[in-house]
């Protein structure tokens, strides 16, 4: 006699019923090659996601009672796969931002929402920006940026050096660790980070749903948030002495000289200011 433990993972009645219904639906159309092809494609897609779920969130997988058969909110996928989407959204990056109101959405390829300000079509609300970001806009939308700086800090354009049309090449050199360079590359959408360089005006990049891509986008999302956090240092310095900091920023843009403002080191907590 075979003993079945009370804690056996034998699926409940509802789950077995869902499985039976799926099987019967399949049997009714099983000799249609195209239907069979679509079914196999769906099974493979879901099995790949179950593998990812187990590897990325083993504790949640073990605890999960979400159905492997019933369709979830995103109806192309089972409840269990929907659970994975929500876990990625909650723990890795905002996966569902573009898809909240679209139950028919597919995730085999997906786009990510830009985190940066869209300078080309979006109306810019300076009051909502980090002050360092708003200051750096003197190079991109000068009239509005100077209005903001004048209103906020009583700074006048005529008190500062003329801004050259093309920035010094040092601005684009990410290796020197300059915090001003980090700021300017962020505003220019030239960081190399997809969360910071994309905007709503250009065609979205599409990402494949696989482990490497999810891990890569997670790391880039963390890095993007760190970039914004690093700007807090600059914000404090601008608040303390806006004229000096703006002059340093314009000097860096024009000549490539940076006044020792380098990124906080990741290995030590010391700020190199």
């Amino acid at each position, binding site marked *: 006699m075979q003993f079945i433990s009370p804690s056996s993972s034998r699926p409940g009645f509802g789950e077995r019923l869902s*499985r039976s219904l799926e099987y019967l639906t*399949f*049997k009714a159309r099983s000799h249609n*090659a195209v239907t069979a*092809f679509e079914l*196999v494609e769906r099974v*493979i897609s879901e*099995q790949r996601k179950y593998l990812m779920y187990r590897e990325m969130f083993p504790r949640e997988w073990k605890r999960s009672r979400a159905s*492997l058969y019933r369709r979830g909110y995103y109806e192309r996928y*089972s409840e269990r796969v929907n659970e994975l989407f929500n876990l990625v959204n909650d723990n890795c990056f905002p996966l569902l931002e573009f898809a909240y109101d679209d139950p028919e959405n597919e995730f085999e390829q997906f786009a990510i929402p830009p985190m940066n300000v869209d300078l080309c079509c979006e109306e810019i609300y300076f009051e909502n920006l980090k002050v360092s970001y708003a200051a750096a806009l003197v190079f991109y939308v000068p009239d509005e940026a100077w209005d903001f700086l004048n209103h906020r800090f009583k700074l006048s354009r005529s008190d500062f050096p003329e801004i050259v049309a093309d920035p010094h090449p040092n601005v684009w050199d990410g290796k020197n660790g300059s915090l001003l360079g980090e700021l300017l590359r962020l505003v220019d959408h030239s960081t190399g980070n997809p969360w910071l360089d994309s905007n709503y005006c250009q065609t979205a990049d599409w990402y494949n749903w696989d482990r490497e891509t999810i891990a890569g986008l997670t790391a880039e999302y963390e890095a993007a948030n760190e970039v914004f956090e690093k700007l807090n240092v600059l914000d404090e310095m601008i608040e303390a002495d806006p004229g000096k900091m703006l002059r340093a920023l314009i000097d860096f843009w024009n000549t490539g000289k940076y006044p020792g403002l380098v990124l906080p080191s990741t290995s030590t907590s010391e700020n190199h200011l």
Partner: protein
Amino acid sequence: MNRETPLDRLIRETERVNPAILLAEEFMRRGAADLLSAEEIDRAAEVLNDARAEIETIRRQIAAFVRSPPSASSRTPIGF
């Protein structure tokens, strides 16, 4: 002169059940909770490519058959 008709060529084609149908049957009998390994998924993806190729081939054959010129039959079907 080659007197082979499109229908002759179709009849001569190798006949088999599309592998997607066999694999779908296998998947349906297996519970989704019995997870496939990465290797099994890769093998299934290969079968899927094979199945897709066969579906495309049949679609092309149907299109070619529809386009082929009519030819007189040696016998008149009953009812005509």
